[in-house]
């Protein structure tokens, strides 16, 4: 693929991926509502909300909030560009992680008790899922002998099934679903780190969140790589929907657990899963060396 086509595709994917995630959020809310015996909002509701927020009054506690929100959006966007250009997965991971830190900083910059507590909980959430996420990417790197996403072979889902399950667990936390929707627990902390954001700044943070989720789903789609484009696209979509559906079902059959349990669960169970997968592949599978 020529360089120009590559860049055009990267730009196209970067611009459309957050919008696709927005549509996915709409599907999420509709499916959740149906599972709960309700009708639910229209499919395009997240877009209606985004446009409504853009038109609202601009109020800030201090200007740093706006800068941190913009920083969050730019970092996540850059991470998405790198992934869409089939670049280095480690770079994608670190940029995305830096972006989520900017969200936390933005919450810390506002001096309200709920915002401070929400920021601390968000940090704890990051502490819970990032090691697992990193280890999943390392497992991909070890298996493929490369971190460049262009070089992924097609049978990752067969060779790294436990990593896939751990990725679904990471997705549960990122999508703020029970049992681990700790930071944004609306019955305890109003909306956690986002409580002091409103209007266009909340829209910025929301868009950045869509980009962050697009990064995770992007890495999820790497698990299916078919040389034929139509089969590849279909397979990736099936994978995305299956993961989303699993998180929805888990959300609807659990209450919210405490943060201690979340950290204990991911740092023990999540890491154990991925480590088991790596060890199996290295020593008991093909016996490949690094």
């Amino acid at each position, binding site marked *: 693929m020529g360089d120009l086509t590559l860049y055009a595709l990267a730009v196209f994917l970067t611009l459309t991926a957050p919008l696709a995630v927005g549509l996915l959020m709409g599907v999420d809310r509709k499916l959740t509502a149906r*599972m*709960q*015996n*309700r009708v639910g909002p229209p499919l395009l509701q997240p877009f209606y909300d985004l446009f409504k927020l853009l038109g609202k009054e601009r109020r800030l506690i201090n200007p740093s909030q706006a800068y941190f929100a913009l920083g969050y959006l730019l970092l996540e966007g850059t991470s998405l560009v790198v992934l869409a250009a089939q670049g280095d997965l480690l770079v994608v991971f670190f940029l995305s992680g830096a972006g989520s830190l900017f969200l936390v900083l933005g919450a810390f910059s506002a001096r309200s*008790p*709920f915002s*401070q*507590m929400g920021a601390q909980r968000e940090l704890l959430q990051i502490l819970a899922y990032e090691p697992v996420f990193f280890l999943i990417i390392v497992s991909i790197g070890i298996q493929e002998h490369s971190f460049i996403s262009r070089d992924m072979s097609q049978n990752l889902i067969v060779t790294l099934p436990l990593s896939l399950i751990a990725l679904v667990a990471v997705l549960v936390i990122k999508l703020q679903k*029970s*049992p681990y*929707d700790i930071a944004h*627990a*609306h*019955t*305890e902390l*109003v909306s956690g780190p986002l409580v002091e954001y409103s209007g266009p700044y909340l829209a910025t943070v929301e868009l950045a969140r869509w980009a962050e989720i697009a990064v995770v789903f992007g890495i999820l789609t790497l698990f299916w790589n078919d040389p034929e484009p139509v089969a590849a696209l279909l397979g990736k979509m099936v994978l995305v929907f299956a993961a989303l559906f699993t998180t929805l079902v888990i*959300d*609807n*059959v*659990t*209450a*919210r*657990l*405490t*943060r201690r*349990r979340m950290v204990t669960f991911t740092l023990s169970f999540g890491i154990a899963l991925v480590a088991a997968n790596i060890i199996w592949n290295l020593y008991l599978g093909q016996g490949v060396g690094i």
Partner: protein
Amino acid sequence: MSRISTIPFGPQHPSFLEPLHLKLNLEEERVVSVELSQGYNHRGMEYAMEKDWKRDAFLSERVCGICSFHHGTTYCQTIEAIAGLQVPERALIIRTIMLELQRITSHTLTLGHIAEAVGYENLFMQFFREREEFMRLANLISGNRVHYSMNWPGGVRRDISPETAKELENKLDEMLPKLQMLDGVVRKDSTWLKRTKGIGVLTKEQATTWAVVGPVARASGIPYDVRLSGNAGYHLEGIRFEPVWREEGDCWARAMVRMDETLQSVDLIRQCLGQLRDGPLVAQFKGHPNGEGFSRNEAPRGELMYWIRAKGESKLDRVKIRTPAFVNIPPLAEMLPGCEFPDVPVIVVSVDPCVCCTDR
């Protein structure tokens, strides 16, 4: 050297339906102390009810939205006690049916609210879905979903026709399996148990000192239920029940007491429908009440008491309403310190604070 931060669980908060202020002093997400502040919903109902005793049959219902029929019935019972009226049996049975129907709607609301506080939104939606059918039943019988307005001192104002009684029975048969499914979740679901067992314990001694009533007391090992003392239709032939009680005293016990009482109410309504005989609906009463009297009733939240002094004119001299939430909310000052911050909404909601009853 630890830092104490103060978080206002203010009058406006997503987990409270009604305005109540808690000032929590936290040390790293553990509650150290709490200051309760109420009075945001004080409307002066006791003063307003002194104006006209006939209007009060409807005004007393508006003290609370969720135990409204219990307020109305207790008021009418007090006037009947003062005037020495003998309420006909059919009216007593109809009152009992509506009291139990209101108890079901109130308990399903509280259980749904506890589920929401715990983060289990699906369970919250399911409880409200089942509750909707009971609201429609109430609408069928009385014409209203919330304030039934069926009471008058001396009896009831509306009748239950045989067709309505048949439909009520069919609907109860339809709803019972669904309530039993929800009972299974509340009893055994693992994440629910992790969030409610052992949280917010109120021991039996504390419950006695704080004079708590209702499901909160019965979950702490005090098996007292005002319905045993024979108010409304509970003393009639063919109506039998045992008070539901537990000993653990934590949030789970309070939720289980309410769930068991919901299933018990369905059974009680069936018993009442079997006892419905023909007869007059209201005992006639001329003139104005004169004297003092009080009456009690088991509202969904506990014991409700009305004490009235009347002087033989259309005004009343003194109306005292002792609502159950008034005595159930202060023990929070003892239940909250020592718990983690995420448990605060769960404990507060499990006590079932009806602030409009508390503040009147």
